[in-house]
């Protein structure tokens, strides 16, 4: 017997679309498309400036639009859904989007940085590494300006990801975000084979996780009869879609499997153990500016989506997913911290560090409260700025000939003497990662742990602090190498920071200190407060698709 399901509602006219609330997304989309057109029609030597200008302008415009949007959200209401309920616009979403835009803008500085006409990307990615053809392209000074439209598309996906109000939109956002990133990963100028390997790994594993995600969506659809978050939430509360009511049978297994598989897709993106294996390889192989983009923006977007999925559609079945997230959080915090101790490469180490931080943020998800949501939001923003700064420093420390980045930490000895300002900045970032007070990392850690303890997850927090102590070991070790050890031979070469990279480091230092010393304004005005309601869903809008534009 074919189960009876509600047919999609056939609307009279086309759905009303609130262009104003879509404007930031459309801006980036337009910039991406325009960028592609530039590639086709503008002569090569003029492209670079044009592309950078366009990208920066688009990101700036998107940010301004997002800020203006806050004022137009209805008073006393969390937010609204737009475009027939596929996207949600509320203060939480705008915070995530704003953070992503700002972080992307800063990453763009790193991406655009070039020295002697060379940036971090391969002259011509289609050539075989080491071939004559490659040499020719390098000598001719070819550049991949396609990078910029690709970044625009990736950021577009990142903005959509945490704003999605149904699973299909979320899946599309996931792909829009990921595909350009797969490509960008393979474009490194140096160690190209390594970079290409990273791209292939990322692509294959990413494709797998997308498949899991999609399968999960299908199962959830089977259970709830809809992909819309509002409808799913209602269905979960009612114990399943109509077909499961009465004699319909038990839909619980479908839901459980659905949640599990969807979670795999999302946890892969945030890089939680045991779905973290791509991170070190990809972070190491990708061009460092792209790694910075992924470590900051992608993480924010992925966590934004994860928080939304667990708090909105699955918010009422917390009992079924909390144990799973407990296990994942503990595994992530413990395993990643222990593995990180053995790392010798700075980028791999930062990758594992990012995994550990994902574990810390997961404790806030487990808290399942508005405070947890706010804590995670603050943590992500603070971490984003700090990690951008850290990767900016990585781009400057080179091997002796000044060409390749110097990954091997042991050879960073004496950096503190060679360039005290640079090493000092990195030390500050590392201390922020370790959660030392007076840095943003401490406030973030406090915020997520406080939420978790308040929600009764104290054992998780104890694991968290113990893992923090382990992570402190390897952050501190880098400081030891930089400051306390004499350089072997000539020590590392530090290329002079251009205005862009220097700017990124300065912004990172400023944000790390400011959010650590005076976080009040951000915590009070930008983050949801538990006064709205103890349940995070109080600040996350989730109308069903039928009532458009509330």
């Amino acid at each position, binding site marked *: 017997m074919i189960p009876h399901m509600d047919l999609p509602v056939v609307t009279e006219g086309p759905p009303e679309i609130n262009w104003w609330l879509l404007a930031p997304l459309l801006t980036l989309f337009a910039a991406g498309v325009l960028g592609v057109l530039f590639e086709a029609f503008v002569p090569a030597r003029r492209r670079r400036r044009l592309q950078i200008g366009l990208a920066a302008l688009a990101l700036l415009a998107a940010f301004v639009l997002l800020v203006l949007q806050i004022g137009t959200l209805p008073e006393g209401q969390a937010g609204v859904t737009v475009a027939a309920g596929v996207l949600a616009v509320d203060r939480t979403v705008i915070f995530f989007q704003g953070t992503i835009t700002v972080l992307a803008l800063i990453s763009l500085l790193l991406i655009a940085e070039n020295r002697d006409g060379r940036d971090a990307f391969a002259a011509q990615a289609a050539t075989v590494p080491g071939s004559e053809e490659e040499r020719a392209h390098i000598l001719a000074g070819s550049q991949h300006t396609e990078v910029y439209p690709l970044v625009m598309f990736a950021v577009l996906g990142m903005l959509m990801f945490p704003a999605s109000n149904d699973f299909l939109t979320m899946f599309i956002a996931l792909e829009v975000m990921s595909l350009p990133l797969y490509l960008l990963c393979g474009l490194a100028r140096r160690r190209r084979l390594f970079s290409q390997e990273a791209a292939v790994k990322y692509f294959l594993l990413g494709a797998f996780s997308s498949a899991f995600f999609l399968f999960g969506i299908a199962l959830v659809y089977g259970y709830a009869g809809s992909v819309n978050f509002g409808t799913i939430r209602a269905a979960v509360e009612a114990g399943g879609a109509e077909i499961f009511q009465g004699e319909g049978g038990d839909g619980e297994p479908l839901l459980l499997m659905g949640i599990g598989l969807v979670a795999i897709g999302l946890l892969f993106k945030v890089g939680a153990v045991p779905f973290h294996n791509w991170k070190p390889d990809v972070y190491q192989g990708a061009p460092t500016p792209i790694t910075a983009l992924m470590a900051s923006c992608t993480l924010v977007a992925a966590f934004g989506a994860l928080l939304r999925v667990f708090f909105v559609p699955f918010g009422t079945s917390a009992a079924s997913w909390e144990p799973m997230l407990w296990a994942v959080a503990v595994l992530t915090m413990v395993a990643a911290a222990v593995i990180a101790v053995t790392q010798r490469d700075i980028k791999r180490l930062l990758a594992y560090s990012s995994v550990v931080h994902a574990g810390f943020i997961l404790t806030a998800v487990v808290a399942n409260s508005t405070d947890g949501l706010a804590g995670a939001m603050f943590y992500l923003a603070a971490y984003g700025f700090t990690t951008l700064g850290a990767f900016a420093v990585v781009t400057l420390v080179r091997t002796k000939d000044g060409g390749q980045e110097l990954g091997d930490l042991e050879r960073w000895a*004496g950096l*503190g*003497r*060679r360039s005290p300002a640079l090493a000092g900045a990195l030390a500050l970032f590392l*201390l922020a990662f*370790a*959660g*030392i*007070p*007076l840095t943003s990392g*401490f*406030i973030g*850690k*406090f*915020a997520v*742990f*406080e939420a978790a*303890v*308040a929600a009764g997850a*104290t054992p998780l*927090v*104890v694991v968290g*602090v*113990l893992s*923090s*102590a382990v992570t*402190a*070991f390897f952050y*501190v*070790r880098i*400081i*030891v190498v930089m*400051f*306390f*050890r*004499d*350089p072997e*031979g*000539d*020590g590392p070469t530090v290329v002079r920071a251009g205005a862009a990279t220097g700017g990124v480091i300065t912004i990172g230092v400023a944000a790390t200190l400011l959010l650590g010393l005076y*976080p*009040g304004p951000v*915590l*009070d005005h930008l*983050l949801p*407060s538990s006064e709205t309601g103890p349940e995070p869903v109080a600040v996350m809008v989730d109308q069903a698709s039928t009532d458009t534009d509330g």
Partner: protein
Amino acid sequence: MIPWLTIAIALPVIGAAVIWALPRVKTSQAAAPAEASAGAAATAGAAAATATRAPAATAAGAAGSPAGTAKRVALGFSVLTLVVLAAMALRFDTSAAGGLQFEEVYPWIPRFGVHFALGVDGIALTLILMSAVLVPLVILAAWNENEDREDGGRGYFALILVLEAMMIGVFAATDVFLFYVFFEAMLIPVYFMIGRYGRGEDRAKAAVKFLLYSLAGGLIMLVAVIGVYVIGGTFLWTDLVGEGSALAAVDPGTARWLFLGFFIAFAIKAPMWPVHTWLPSAAGASRPGTAVLLVGVLDKVGTYGMLRYCLELFPSAVSWFVWPVVALSLVSIVYGAILAIGQSDMMRLVAYTSVSHFGFITLGIFALTPQAQAGAALYMVNHGFATGALFLVVGFLVARRGSSLIEDYGGVQKVAPKLAGVFLVAGLAGLALPGLAPFVSEFLVFVGVYAFHPAPAVIAASGVVLAALYILWMYQRTMTGETPARLSGLRDLSGREMWAVAPLLALIIAFGLYPQPLLNVINPAVERTVEVGTADTAGAGADGASEEGGEE
């Protein structure tokens, strides 16, 4: 109203910023020697020194060089801070020393109810003054210690000032969150002071060990701090203590866990056996000035925290911990003393004596009698002076011979009588000779502990005997006997060095003969903390957990 404490915290920070902002290289002066020294550096194999850094190193010793200015700035600001604090102390109302004075409360992070809240009671005031006295002396003693560094010790002096601000802050904080911030943040300057400006090959290792131990303790405390906030609803210490607070109503089981969370951090800091192992290596790898601040002040944060936070925040949990802590204290006393005897390095030896002395302090705190706690609080101050003096004198020896090994010295008395005399006085203060300040505090602890229970007092007394052994034996081996030929040219104390150590000796003798001013300030504060403990022990005595509690 003048915000005394804020000024006292801000001054050293400003001083550090000024040092930071000093021009790195004086171009006018350094222009000429730049090329010469760059060449010299290259031939000397100092590959690390780039052409721009080299002049800083060579010019460091010269008067008017950046590093020379840095020293003066550091000394100036630390003296200024001391003056401000002394002026504040004169306005301190001793009749109300049990309560907080000079209170300042400004909201800091409203979302978490965090305030920048400062205030001092008698105990905090004496500890703050002690720190403020030690810092200028340490700067004076370290005047020429860092000439071999490429920055001439500029960074070192800046770090000392940053550390001073945090030391004042940690004692003055009346907001648990703020206390935690200072408690953790002060690790960083010390970490660099040991790791970058320390002595010996193992300094990086020692610095890491110090940092990780402290950080691990601090992170465990973080859970307890969060717990306090979640249960108590506020971080303000004044709102958390007392009968009416939400924290007082917490069930004893939870209170015990929270107590333990705080206690582990403080025990590591204190340092208490068995988590003391970082101290000897850290002290051994430190410059003597660093060691003074590390052992003299930083470790006091542990014992101060036990008194202020463990006892007063969780009165219901105290009785449960009394005997375990007393036992650990006794082990610390005896074990620290025995290991001190066996040391061949004077820095490590003094560090181990401190483990023993800190045993006395924790013993006094947890005996929960008025005399014992007053003795413990007084001991914290006296130990800072006595051990500070001892470390400084060892530092003078190290500055002369570059070694802190006992076997490298002998018969110093003959060539440097002043040095030997100062060494002897400082050492006798360390073993609590009557007439010197530590005696008063140790005596009070004994009296108080005996009232609590005779057994621990008897065991602790063995620590005094051992103290005589390790101090006098060290003195005998280094200062008396034949002077080896290599030491015949040993300089006696210079004027600067006398100025660095004389104030400490004066204080030790003055407070040894007339400790009343300190006790006047400490006693009322201690009465408050004892009330907490005894009220509770009386209750526990009824439970049969402690038979002695009811007797006093």
